[in-house]
């Protein structure tokens, strides 16, 4: 029977480090460095696609905002700026803890990696919790677009169809963002377990780094969402 895919070691000029293969080195790569560079580049490429993904939504938002200028501001008043601001701080904090977990890996502090990952998960969960409270309020106020959209504010009622566009964009954009957060928390959980098992150290922490990139991106998206959705016409409140 011929050899399987992973037995044959090819010695290329990238070379193995002193003849020993790191257990995390995948067979298609010649060195950990090549693997790390490839993984990081891959994550950046993925983030480019995410920028285009959210970008299309932001484009739709910009177009409708310019068409329905006043309505968007009025509708935005129904969003809770305080909760939104708290969420912003929470998310920025979680990016900090994420970065600190990578720092811990660089310093070979296994337990600290796990600690900061858990903190990141906690903060992410807090964000989602506050978000669901906000969604609950909208549901209660009949501001969810669809057949049950029934605003009580007369200023909104007069332009119900346009206000509905605002709330549609609000739910879709924050909803997709929240979905990305959930996926991120899933990744972080897997990373926390792997870290606990000693998978990462100063020689290898690429998955932490790539997930960190993803998490920071999700944070940045929120930093755009918050002012565009919550703060328009804020001075006129």
């Amino acid at each position, binding site marked *: 029977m*011929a*050899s*399987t*895919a992973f037995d*044959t070691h*090819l*010695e*290329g*000029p990238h070379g193995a480090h002193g003849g020993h293969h790191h257990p995390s080195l*995948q*067979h*298609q*790569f010649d060195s950990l460095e*090549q693997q790390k*560079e*490839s993984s990081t*580049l*891959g994550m950046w*490429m*993925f983030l*480019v*696609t*995410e920028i*285009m*993904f*959210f*970008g*299309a*939504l932001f*484009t*739709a938002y910009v*177009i*409708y905002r310019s*068409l*329905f200028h006043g309505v968007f501001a009025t509708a935005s008043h129904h969003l809770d700026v305080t909760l939104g601001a708290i969420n912003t701080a929470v998310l920025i904090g979680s990016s900090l803890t994420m970065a600190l977990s990578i720092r811990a890996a660089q310093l070979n502090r296994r337990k600290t990696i796990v600690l900061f990952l858990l903190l990141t998960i906690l903060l992410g969960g807090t964000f989602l919790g506050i978000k669901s409270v906000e969604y609950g309020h909208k549901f209660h106020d009949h501001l969810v*677009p*669809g*057949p049950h959209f029934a605003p009580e504010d007369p200023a909104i009622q007069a332009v119900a*169809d*346009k206000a*509905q*566009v605002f709330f*549609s*964009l609000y739910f*879709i954009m924050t909803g997709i963002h929240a979905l990305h957060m959930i996926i991120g928390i899933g990744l972080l959980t897997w990373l926390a377990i792997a870290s606990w098992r000693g998978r990462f150290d100063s020689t290898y922490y690429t998955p932490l780094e790539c997930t960190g990139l993803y998490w920071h991106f999700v944070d940045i998206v929120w930093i755009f969402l918050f002012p565009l959705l919550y703060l328009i016409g804020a001075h006129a409140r």
Partner: protein
Amino acid sequence: MNTSATAESIVASPETGFERPNYLNAEYGLRSWLLTRDHKRIAILYLISVSAFFALGGLFAMLIRLELLTPEGDLMQPDTYNRVFTMHGVIMVFFFLIPAIPAVLGNFLVPIMIGARDLAFPRLNLASWYIYTLGGLFVLWAMVNGGVDTGWTFYTPYSTSFSNTHVVATALGVFITGFSTIFTGLNFVVTIHRMRAPGMTWFRLPLFIWSHYATSLIILLGTPVIAITLLLVAAERVLHLGIFDPRLGGDPVLFQHLFWFYSHPAVYIMILPSMGVISELVAAFSRKRVFGYKVVAFASIAIAVLGFLVWGHHMFVTGQSIYAATVFSVISMLVAIPSAVKVFNWTATLYEGSVSLQTPMLYALGFIGLFTLGGLTGTMVATLGIDVHLHDTYFIVAHFHYVMVGGTIMGYLGGLHYWWPKMTGRLYPAFLSRLSALLVFVGFNLTFFPQFILGYLGMPRRYWSYPEEFQVFNVLSSAGASVLGVGFILPLCYFIWSMRYGKRSGDNPWGAVGLEWDTPSPPPTENFYTVPVVTHGPYEYNTQEVHARTSHPEARVG
């Protein structure tokens, strides 16, 4: 006898039937295929899926042409016809044209051509295939349950608020499959950047790699936009939001902008890989470097960039401003130039070459002719004054079939015929393959050239019944389609036949130059026995090396 140019390859003696260890016989069993991480096996998985969808899309095409034999609608109800042409479009665009070359030929060849063991992310590659299959299942489910009738373009508000068909399932299917493409593109970009063999500088890369790189850039930037657009359509349909429906405050033309922002670059996703194949074929079958290598390489990048700036040329009659229309029209002229330059460069490659008319070359030459006409008719409809008359008529249908069938599919078939011996270690019957190429060429022209005339006459597209005076050309077109169909079915038959009964191929049956020809046919799982070190550019043909490669009678192809 040693036919391979690499040292240490294990010799195959065909008479005894001893097969060298290669990626096909490395492991057996369904599990080894369904859980493989080998890019070559994944390419074969895609080959099977993509062929199945092509057959399905072709079936719908046959139904369309049958119905259009007569002016009255007599084969099926208009609602059924609407579903038939929609399914034809959705399946052909999203499940065949976009994935075919990158996922089959690209997956197989990109690592080998750059001297790597595999793509950067083999598990992601396998995930791509599963995601593609999942998206396909959504669309198949929709099809079996009555299909969708919005046209593959899903224009609103018809798709969001009026159609009674399975729009959401189909849209979700396409949405899911989009991620398959994105992951493939991502894999290619990282692989090409980071995993080239020593000595493989950017300008020593085969043009096939350049075009797949450009394609991957488009994939990464464009596909997410269609994903979100279709998601919005689904959301609007299910939740009655008001993004695109004017009755609910939305703008139907916004949908068109978002849709075409992706779908125009998408056509370059379809054609660039095919152009990459043609570069390889023209070089191999002229035994000569492609004329103006760097120009062709940069032309691919130029097409990718400019391709993002022309989407409005699909919307000249929707009522956008004259100013906007002008901008889109002039940039559309610009994007045609790199393609024209490539055509000239390929033709010039033949000059003082050593031209062999084996089957892959027949497809390549066919491509050049058909793509020229398809591309020129594209610039015709990019011309504002003409497009008013021609938009949404059969002229457009003819134009895009010339570039997608006469272009992409010819490239795909040419590539399959060229690399089939490498992928499978088997040869196919030369006479039948040449006959098929001829049938495809003749059948194709007979099918689609009359449609140019129909379009100028004013026959609109997506018509189930039509005025009598259009019948003659419709009959010609349907007749051509049957010839074309035979031309497509034949390769399916002899390729499958060749897997068992085809003559075994040598490592380099065509006497071509390229890293893929320096390794056995079929290649070992790790692609190479020793990592190649590249010391010269692609397409360096000299007589002695070719002699060494082709001296074994096994190696030659009739």
